């Protein structure tokens, strides 16, 4: 029982971590980034290369992978998204345009990864020793992943709710029309949010790679999971993404353990459906 709780939290923690990035990109920059999961996978491979070729500890590698994700997404925003933002007559049009463009970007990133690493499953062994905790045994790498996810989540929530910079991002997420009257540069906020979302995706990828096998084509799975978490938690809400991510991880683990592993996806979508019927804007969404 406790074992499943811990495993569920580990899985949910990584869902939360990657979904935080997507909810920031979608909620603040108003860009639905379908290549989000491929950024995660690229970060998995980057961490793998740093570890297996350069012998850099994966936890330290996050310090390289995270900022790289930031810069990479800043460039994507600057050269690909900016023209779309400039020409979009409204939010809906930007969403459609960004879906089409990032759908293309998805295949570009995936293609590059396939050329470099092939289509096989990849993994590496890091802290793979069992750790006893709360009367159960967990793999060390999973425990590290959980601690890292929760730490990043706590830091991000702290920044969003305790600093002016965070206030500005939240203002743009909930009231984009009013924000300029407060002296807020919404374009700059959107660019920063997109880059921060990319940094979180990359960090999430680095964390996931510590305990999971991954393939060049698995990006879309991460995008879908993250999207479910974002919608469950409420578009643009980081606390929502954390709660929904953990919830989803627990549901998946418990269904796999007590009912049937084949029903995990069905269970996920059932939770998704029921919650959307009850709260159409998500757990923390605005009415």
């Amino acid at each position, binding site marked *: 029982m406790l074992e499943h709780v811990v495993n569920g939290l580990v899985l949910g923690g990584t869902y939360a971590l990657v979904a935080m990035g997507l909810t920031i990109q979608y909620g603040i920059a108003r860009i639905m980034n379908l290549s989000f999961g491929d950024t995660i996978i690229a970060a998995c491979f980057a961490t793998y290369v740093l570890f297996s070729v350069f012998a850099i500890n994966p936890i330290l590698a996050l310090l390289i992978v995270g900022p790289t994700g930031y810069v990479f997404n800043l460039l994507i925003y600057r050269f690909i998204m900016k023209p779309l933002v400039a020409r979009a007559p409204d939010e809906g049009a930007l969403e459609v345009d960004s879906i089409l463009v990032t759908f293309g970007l998805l295949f570009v990133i995936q293609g590059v990864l396939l050329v470099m690493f092939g289509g096989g499953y990849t993994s590496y062994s890091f802290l793979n020793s069992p750790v006893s905790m709360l009367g159960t045994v967990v793999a060390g790498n999973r425990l590290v992943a959980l601690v890292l996810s929760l730490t990043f989540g706590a830091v991000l929530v702290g920044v969003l709710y305790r600093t002016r910079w965070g206030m*500005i991002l939240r203002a743009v997420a909930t009231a984009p029309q009013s924000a300029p009257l*407060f002296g807020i540069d919404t374009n700059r906020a959107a660019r920063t949010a997109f880059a921060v979302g990319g940094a979180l995706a990359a960090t999430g990828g680095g964390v996931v790679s510590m305990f999971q096998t991954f393939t060049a084509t698995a990006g879309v799975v991460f995008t879908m999971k993250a999207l479910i978490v974002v919608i469950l938690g409420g578009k643009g809400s980081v606390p929502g993404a954390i709660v929904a991510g953990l919830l989803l991880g627990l549901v998946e683990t418990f269904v796999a353990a007590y009912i049937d592993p084949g029903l995990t996806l069905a269970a996920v979508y059932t939770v998704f459906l029921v919650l959307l019927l009850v709260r159409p804007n998500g757990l923390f969404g605005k009415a």
Partner: protein
Amino acid sequence: MLELKNLTVRYGKHLAVDGVSFSVTKGEAVVVLGANGAGKSSILKAVAGTVALSDGSVVLGGETLTGIPAHKVTNHGIALVPEGRGVIGRMTVEENLRLGATPQRARASEDDTMAQVFEIFPRLKERRSQFVHTMSGGEQQMVAVGRAMMSKPDYLLLDEPSLGLAPIVVGDMFKALARVRETGVGLLIVEQNVRISLRHADRGYLLEAGRITGSGTSEELMNDAAVRQAFLGGDT
């Protein structure tokens, strides 16, 4: 001095504001009176930079502001309280106020300005941790004006501050605005509520179909037959 020179705003083919020119000085209260759709809001939006001018210019202290994006206009000392208030409902009173001090010109004096806002609106101090969307219309309007004050404006633009408020609340709001004005801020108010806005303004302009059709001191306008006819129910 804030000068509007031949200000013209078009929405597609529709001419909303047609060559409006007038000016406001610091510490002065000017009201623009007009019916729904006369172009009152468009004038304020054009000055604040949230809609583009199709002709004319906005000049502040000799510097032309035309074409500057809205978020930068605030840093020049112009704050707009739009219709519908433009507050952030899902944030607290204090967060709204602190966010209002985002322009560079307002940062250094943020805490002092906040004390000043709380002095004029003691209710906001009591409710500083309350979420704005849970407050009454009058309280939200206080947040909106307080937020605008936080940017340390020289000119405060108010789009129908009386809209949707109970008469007694409207009276309090205008008294509060009079105190804001005493701090040296110039007020440009657009209103349909003629009586109370003229009582608190120095001068006024009449706006019809995007054009200025009359002007005068508040007293003159109050006694003007056309104003009485159009806005005060035609009684003598």
